[in-house]
């Protein structure tokens, strides 16, 4: 199957070409022309600039101050966190036994949630992207529901499903003697519940966007389905896999509502970092800030690690 884009001019490249210019086809290795450097917002647009930049690039009146408010609003709390951090007592706070326990538990639970999301979410994403089974859209909507569901509601729902008297939980209890609520495994499951949809939606988009003809090429070379998936599909969707993993891991790491509802708040077993922060804020604000700083650092690391994915380089 030919790529449909072959014959069409690339939209973004065409925009900068004078009319009557050659159509740039996808096959040509022509770099898009460099974007004109945007002038400062206060500079009046010249006629040439208006022509080059085209419609829609000059902000409607009032957008710039409104956007500035948004930026300040988003950044100020983070600045406050840094300004008010008890830098002097930081080393002591960080190494306090409770902190380390919560940090370790958080990492175990969030990484466990990520693993569960990968093991079950990637096949689900593949099926949603590739197999046109009846009710696919309904399944997708239901699977993505936890993304928009208030986490506390998720926790309650988990309790009703996997709690000691839940519809699945009572069987788990009587058949295998497994009790999920108020256990580390329970905390991990609560985090998986809210985190997996992020992985599924990102990986599904990645699988849909990839050029399937690479898989065809692999098949003509003698590769079976599993080999194709492992050696061709997975590497090709690696960026989406990385982005989805980071998103769902970050979501799992910060999970609060579902965890505290389903797994409780037991130090060493289910008290993850967000729970510890909330608790510490009641009696030791300094420790809460310290813990928050740790999580801020982790979030920043994820953001920096994925900057290529989320902020495409021009």
């Amino acid at each position, binding site marked *: 199957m030919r790529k449909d884009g072959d014959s069409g001019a690339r939209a973004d490249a065409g925009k900068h070409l004078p009319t009557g210019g050659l159509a740039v086809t996808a096959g040509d290795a022509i770099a898009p022309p460099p974007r004109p450097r945007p002038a400062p917002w206060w500079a009046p647009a010249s006629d040439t600039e208006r022509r080059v930049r085209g419609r829609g690039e000059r902000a409607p009146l009032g957008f710039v101050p409104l956007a500035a408010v948004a930026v300040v609003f988003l950044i100020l709390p983070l600045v406050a966190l840094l300004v008010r951090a008890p830098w002097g007592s930081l080393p002591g706070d960080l190494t306090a036994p409770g902190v380390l326990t919560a940090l370790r538990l958080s990492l175990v639970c969030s990484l466990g949630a990520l693993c569960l999301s990968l093991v079950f979410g990637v096949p689900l994403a593949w099926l949603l992207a590739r197999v046109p089974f009846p009710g696919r859209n309904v399944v997708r909507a239901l699977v993505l529901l936890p993304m928009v569901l208030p986490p506390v509601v998720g926790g309650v729902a988990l309790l009703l499903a996997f709690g000691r008297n839940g519809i699945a939980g009572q069987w788990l209890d009587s058949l295998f003697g497994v009790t999920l609520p108020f256990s580390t495994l329970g905390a991990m499951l609560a985090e998986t519940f809210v985190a997996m949809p992020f992985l599924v939606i990102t990986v599904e988009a990645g699988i849909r966007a990839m050029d399937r*003809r690479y898989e065809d090429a692999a098949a003509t070379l003698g590769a079976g389905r599993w080999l194709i998936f492992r050696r061709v599909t997975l590497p090709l969707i690696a960026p989406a896999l990385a982005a989805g993993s980071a998103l769902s891991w970050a979501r799992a790491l910060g999970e609060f509502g579902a965890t505290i509802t389903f797994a409780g708040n037991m130090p060493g077993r289910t008290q993850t970092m967000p729970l510890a922060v909330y608790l510490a804020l009641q009696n030791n604000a300094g420790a809460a800030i310290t813990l928050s700083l740790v999580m801020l650092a982790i979030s920043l690391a994820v953001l920096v690690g994925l900057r290529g994915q989320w902020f495409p380089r021009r």
Partner: protein
Amino acid sequence: MSLEARVALRKGTLDLDVGLTVEASGVVVLLGPNAAGKTTLLRALAGLVPLERGRVVLDGEVLEDTAAGVRVPTERRPIGVVFQDYLLFPHMTSLENVAFGLRARGTPRATARARAHEMLDRVGLAEAAGARPRALSGGQAQRVALARALATDPRLLLLDEPLAAMDAGARAELRRGLTRHLAAFPGTCLVITHDPIEAMTLGDKLVVLEAGRVVQAGTPEELSSHPRSRYVADLLGLNLYRGRVDQGAVRLTGGQRLIAADPLPQGEVFAVVPPRAVALHRTLPDGSPRNVWRGEVQDLDVVGNHVRAHVAGELPVIAEVTPGAVASLRLDDGGPVYVAVKAMEIEVYEA
């Protein structure tokens, strides 16, 4: 080596129904306009698109037969494919790309790598073994794709527009290289193209596909002398001759001599005579034309605002003349004419 295929399927607006028989090894070129179903036919042969009706038999082995319910999956067909934009796996080096098929078929890693090295060496790319596809030029990528497809020793090799991604300057060179590699391939080879020059130079046999049907099949000579459809006529409307450079002229396979302007290349060549460079006269022309021979106007074809005259004779040729010339020379009456072509107008290049 033989391929016997009948492929019938519908895809979108395409209604493909094609019979294809290749008796011996050699290069068969599948020529046709866009959306004629060339790529779909190739994908069907490779097993990437299921047939609705038909069968594919390669060297007596039934690969697909809808009547008998047989369908060998793509990965178990002895078919190598060079895709249109090569589709080299971007996350693997050239060597890993070439070794992929061998590894997929269970060859131990060391053996596969050694064989991949050998294949890359054969296409002259030993030094690019460690390079990722992104770092390769178009011509290099094409050769890696060829090496990858050949590494598993397929009995049928399919190439989809192998030269389409190349710029015009590099094409002639790459075409010669490709011709050489295909000549060394022992099995059957099917090449898709929409470029008539490519079709004439690569193929021993041409199959012209139009709107999902074979409209003509035969040798390039057969096709260019007797086009049987508007498409073929337009496409092969130029006069292409094959021959050998001999004493400052081109001796054609039929024995005639064409005198072309210096410098001439050596050995086997193609000579192209554009129809508009062919002049027709009722009397022996005087003056400079170096190539003059007798012929007989057999047919006139109006194409746009000019007329194509099919002239039979010592050297069959298509001439493009003005309606005025047709009237003043009374070409529509047929009869003998003198055909004149200036040496300057004949383009000669290596085969």
